[in-house]
């Protein structure tokens, strides 16, 4: 008997250009013509590995896509996996925000509707007695937004582009412009909707391709371009999220914007290391984490986290213990610079800062920080009490707990990702299950969590959605059915567009997403008309987004035992996890 054998799958077995929606295969001629024109001609191919040449990256990780008039290219709020380069034609970026923006209905996004008082009451008798009931009409039915088959792919389109242009404020991007690169590389959602004005042709590059170009391009032209774009479009606003930069003079802020350095740490490749890290949570240490600032080193500036999480640790006997963590927008190194300013001698860092997973950070050089601090200490500012405010707020952003072991466990298990982590204090929980019952009442009798999960000290972390700051469940959803709610930022699943592929459920390292067989109102399992296989859909906690009162579980606990915690809110974390 012979062993079955197949050749090992390789990265480029299926080039990006062979996926649905591409104009055609990326031929050598197309790649050559691209490599001869800017900005690709500015990339130095010498630095690329023989196994990973620039030509192959361009051939396999990019594709040419065509769009018709009104086709939506990227939607605000969706998860970005690729960047676009305009080859020909014009695209429009929707510059409006909030209510004045392109309405969610025409973008095919879920419109979150809060139940009225009477609708809430009606849940008592309207909830279905069968589990996971869906209206058949809404499953697989034609959506309300406009779709058409365009260039071999189903696309959402805007019906009358000229009317949209009259009504909404947009910016024009023409041949030679990039867009979408910040979301693709920063693991963030798209900040704007982009649509085609007339017929356009774009080069779309997967983030894996951009990452490799950034890594090996000796000239650094693309990297420089992306950094310049971030510096120009978003850096000032990002810096202003920290109180330290709130009252900066425009001239000083501009100098800071010009001089900050960008740094990346850790592995961006996939969610796998993150899942493995959690599986082996009990034996986890910070040994494999790239160090940003070593304990005992003299920091040459403050580090401000752009994306990802960072661990603050301290030497403890022969090991290290976690004393805090930082999340996006938080800063490290301010204490040392302040102490240095006071003592006039360099002060070494008392702790180590390391990256958990992939991290992007900006470094604001010491002289500029000193300038800000000196400005805060000016007599006028002392009189108006500006210093204590700024410094104290900056420091209190770092999450710290008295119990180092608990803090370490929270970081090791990646619970610090949670913006709405469910925590049950077992010293107060009477196991009455009122929380689960309330969840069931709010979700058509289908509870979205089980009161079961890992226990850290006296705290249980049930398998309920954390609403992660970096939701890797959203990365591979083919229909963008799992998305951030634009009003609250919660992660929700659109039942009308969920095709039941289970990508989100398998990506979630916290087992917070379940696949369920859906039923009709009579309790019959809905099956696919062709294959007769039951239809499944993903379900998870949606923080009772359609309920007036917010998460029912939290409000239903009679003993104040169940909390929802934003793990980046230092004061709340301290309050909940203090004995």
């Amino acid at each position, binding site marked *: 008997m012979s062993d079955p054998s197949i050749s090992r799958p390789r990265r480029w077995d299926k080039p990006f250009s062979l996926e649905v929606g591409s104009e055609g295969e990326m031929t050598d001629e197309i790649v050559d013509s691209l490599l001869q024109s800017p900005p690709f001609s500015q990339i130095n191919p010498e630095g690329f590995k023989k196994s990973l040449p620039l030509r192959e990256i361009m051939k396999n990780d990019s594709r040419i896509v065509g769009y018709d008039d009104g086709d939506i290219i990227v939607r605000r709020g969706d998860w970005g996996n690729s960047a676009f380069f305009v080859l020909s034609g014009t695209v429009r970026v929707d510059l409006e925000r909030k209510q004045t923006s392109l309405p969610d209905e025409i973008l095919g996004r879920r419109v979150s509707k809060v139940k009225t008082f009477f609708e809430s009451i009606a*849940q008592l008798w309207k909830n279905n007695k069968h589990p996971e009931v869906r209206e058949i009409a809404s499953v697989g039915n034609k959506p309300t937004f406009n779709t058409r088959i365009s260039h071999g792919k189903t696309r959402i389109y805007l019906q009358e582009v000229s009317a949209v242009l009259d009504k909404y404020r947009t910016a024009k991007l023409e041949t030679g412009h990039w867009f979408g690169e910040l979301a693709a590389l920063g693991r963030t959602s798209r900040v704007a909707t982009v649509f085609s004005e007339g017929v356009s042709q774009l080069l779309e590059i997967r983030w894996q391709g951009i990452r490799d170009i950034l890594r090996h391009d000796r000239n650094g032209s693309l990297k420089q371009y992306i950094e310049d774009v971030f510096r120009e479009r978003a850096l000032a606003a990002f810096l202003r999220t920290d109180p330290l930069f709130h009252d900066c003079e425009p001239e000083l802020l501009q100098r800071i914007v010009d001089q900050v350095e960008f740094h990346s740490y850790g592995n961006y490749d996939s969610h796998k290391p993150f899942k493995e890290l959690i599986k082996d949570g009990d034996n986890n240490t910070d040994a494999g984490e790239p160090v940003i600032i070593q304990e005992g080193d003299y920091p040459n500036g403050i580090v401000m986290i752009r994306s990802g999480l960072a661990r603050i640790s301290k030497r403890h006997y022969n090991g290290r213990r976690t004393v805090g963590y930082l999340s996006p927008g938080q800063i490290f190194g301010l204490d040392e610079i302040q102490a240095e300013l006071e003592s006039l001698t360099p002060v070494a860092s008392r702790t180590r800062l390391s990256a958990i997973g992939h991290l992007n950070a900006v470094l604001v050089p010491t002289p500029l920080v000193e300038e800000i601090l000196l400005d805060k200490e000016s007599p006028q500012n002392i009189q108006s009490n500006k210093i204590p405010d700024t410094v104290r707020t900056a420091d209190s952003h770092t999450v710290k707990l008295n119990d180092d072991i608990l803090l370490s466990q929270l970081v090791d298990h990646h619970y610090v990702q949670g913006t709405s982590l469910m925590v049950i204090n077992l010293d107060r929980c009477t196991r009455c299950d009122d929380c689960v019952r309330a969840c069931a009442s709010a979700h058509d009798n289908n509870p979205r969590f089980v009161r079961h999960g890992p226990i850290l000290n006296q705290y249980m972390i049930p398998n309920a959605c954390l609403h992660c700051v970096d939701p890797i469940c959203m990365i591979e959803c083919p229909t963008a059915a799992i998305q951030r709610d634009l009003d609250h930022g919660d992660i929700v699943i659109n039942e009308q567009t969920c095709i039941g592929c289970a990508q989100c459920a398998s990506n979630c390292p916290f087992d917070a997403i379940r696949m369920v067989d859906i039923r009709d109102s009579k309790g019959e399992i809905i099956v696919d008309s062709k294959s007769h296989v039951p239809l499944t859909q993903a379900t998870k906690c949606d923080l009772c987004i359609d*309920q007036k009162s917010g998460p029912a579980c939290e409000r239903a606990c009679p003993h104040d035992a169940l909390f929802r915690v934003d793990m980046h809110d230092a004061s709340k974390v301290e309050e909940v996890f203090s004995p």
Partner: protein
Amino acid sequence: MRNLLFQQRFTVAAFAILSLLMIAGYSLFSITLSKTSFASGTMLLICIFILASYQLRKTFSFLSIGSTSAWLQFHIFIGLFSCLLFALHIKFRIPNGFFETLLFFSYLTVFLSGVIGWFLSRSVPYRLSSRGEEVIFERIPIHRRNILDKVESLVFDNQDSAASKAIPDFYQKHLQAFFAGPSNLMRHILHSERHRHHLSQKITAMKPFLNEQEQITMQQIVELIQQKDDLDYQYALQALLKLWLFVHVPLTYSLILFALFHTIAVCAFASTSG
């Protein structure tokens, strides 16, 4: 936590002030020779309705009408206040009529079961998280069945025909009843470990009569005894937390019926004078 401490202090202070005001008001009212019992009875009935509405709040968990925890605090507050009102209403004496005595004991049972429930909900969770695995109450029988299957497989499956029947005999004599269902519940509630101590003595006494393989089997059984005992501990305490509600809630409804009947009777037959 600081908020909780402040809230507790505030509640105690509010209760003390309100109680003093009520006693003073009641004394002043009684000087006027008015019908104090009618006033205190009406207030008491209102209190009972407010107390019963807590159950409704649980049903309407999805409405924005305050958190259940705040409602519980209010429920406890009104419950304690109603006790003082009740004492004033009955003038600190046990009533003599049959129906009034029944009403008296109904109130007392509801009140005391409430106090016990309050005590249990504050003390039992600490104990639950101190021993055994965290299990959902409804799933305990499944876990128990799994342990029983494991122990019976250890006792009966590996039996050589020629080997001694020491372990099966020991199992049938001392362990069968223990593994068959929930056991030693009262001891768990009272925090006694006497049963385990006795079982452990019996196992120690048995060990010299076991061969090497049987010693290993016995050690595995000891581990299962520990697991089963932990499960019983969880079962006893979680059942206790659920059981008190089965006294408190149905009796509340009886109390409401009795109180309404009492009110109608009093209004129908009471004289108009104080």
